[in-house]
């Protein structure tokens, strides 16, 4: 089994070295590591040049403006039969390749979703760490049992290269390409599994402005993909159930978050209190599981974030589904030193 890494990067001088080193320090070595320099204007090319004897650096003719175009450019240089896609702001755990290799020993498996963890920085990244814990230890684990992984994370995914080239391809018509890839694989009834031991550590937005922009991309991309692939949603009853539950609950309860306090402030307060208690129980569990005691404090900022998330969810629903104003502008969060 020959393993390649495909990592697009644009102006990643703060993080790219940590990313390169994490690829080089794997217990099971990559056969090929490709960094696609998307015409960076900072010190990224110089940093990559230091490791030119150990990695392959390719440069796009001009800045493509989004991650999927840079990935598409780099794909032509991939020689491995397994391709790992990750981001330049992400550090792979030293056993990442070894775990991914184990997952592909099952010949039916076409794609593997790894586990993403948020690098600790401040209260906002703590909230994201909590989200990842719930999303992966509960949602994705259950989805793995019922054979329906909702999304392959952009920061930690692996594909059989041939299947990727044949069935996935790049359309550049949604803003969350990882979700688009996953829908396409499900459409072909190809097997995706989740490996919680293939861990990557990623950098999440550290201030509210970047957080809001990222949520706009994620929720907006979610609606774009649902609109794009709505015809295939009912073709698999489990997929129909998962998507109907996620999107109807998200939409209806986003409305309720604003409507109930207006109709009845007393019940609104009770629901908020109930929400806080439930969050506290899950946060305690997440703090123990992740061995990060501070996660227990997450329910406090979440009393505000619930309204921000609900607002963005509805806003993106209106923009993408009702007004059909497709936003394809790629958003890149401001980086902090890893």
């Amino acid at each position, binding site marked *: 089994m020959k393993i390649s890494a495909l990592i697009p990067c644009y102006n990643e001088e703060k993080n790219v070295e940590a990313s390169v080193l994490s690829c080089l320090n794997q217990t099971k070595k990559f056969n090929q590591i490709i960094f696609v320099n998307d015409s960076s204007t900072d010190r990224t090319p110089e940093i990559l040049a230091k490791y030119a004897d150990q990695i392959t650096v390719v440069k796009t003719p001009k800045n493509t403006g989004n991650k999927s175009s840079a990935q598409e450019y780099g794909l032509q240089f991939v020689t491995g039969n397994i391709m790992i896609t990750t981001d330049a702001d992400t550090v792979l755990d030293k056993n990442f390749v070894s775990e991914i290799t184990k997952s592909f020993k099952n010949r039916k498996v076409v794609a593997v979703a790894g586990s993403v963890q948020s690098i600790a920085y401040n209260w906002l990244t703590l909230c994201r760490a909590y989200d990842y814990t719930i999303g992966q230890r509960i949602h994705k*684990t259950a989805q793995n049992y019922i054979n329906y992984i909702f999304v392959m994370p952009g920061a930690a995914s692996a594909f059989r290269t041939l299947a990727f080239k044949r069935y996935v391809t790049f359309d550049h018509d949604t803003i969350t390409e990882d979700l688009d890839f996953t829908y396409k694989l499900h459409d072909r009834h190809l*097997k995706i599994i989740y490996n919680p031991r293939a861990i990557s550590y990623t950098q999440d937005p550290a201030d509210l402005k970047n957080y809001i922009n990222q949520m706009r991309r994620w929720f907006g991309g979610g609606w774009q993909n649902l609109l794009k692939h709505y015809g295939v949603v009912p073709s698999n009853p489990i997929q129909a159930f998962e998507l109907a539950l996620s999107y109807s609950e998200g939409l209806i*309860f986003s*409305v309720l978050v604003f409507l109930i306090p207006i109709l009845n402030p007393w019940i609104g307060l009770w629901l908020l209190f109930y929400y806080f208690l439930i969050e506290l129980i899950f946060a305690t569990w997440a703090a123990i599981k992740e061995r990060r005691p501070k996660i227990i404090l997450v329910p406090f900022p979440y009393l505000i974030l619930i309204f921000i998330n609900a607002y963005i969810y509805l806003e993106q629903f209106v923009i993408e589904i009702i007004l059909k104003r497709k936003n394809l502008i790629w958003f890149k969060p401001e980086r902090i030193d890893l």
Partner: protein
Amino acid sequence: MIIVPFIGLSILIHILIIIFYSTFHMGPSNKRQQNRYLMFNKFFGSIIIIFVFSFVLISATSLIRLSVTDKHSTWGFIENSKILPVLANDLYSATIRVDRAS
């Protein structure tokens, strides 16, 4: 990636799935969907979508009804307070004044 900004029904169902599979020591399913069942699956999938959406919608409607009919509701507060009669009286007086002036 976050798909739902809440903790609610979805998480409860996923926890139940994990408990079910763990209790009966079942590993992740190794099955792949077969194309020959596509028409049946599409029909069954559509029924599921309608059922799930209706269930969530009915739950939400019940909560809205409770919020409106509860004694602490905003509408109840407006009705029971003296604001409405005062507002109505002011409006009535203003209308009379306008009528007389014209």
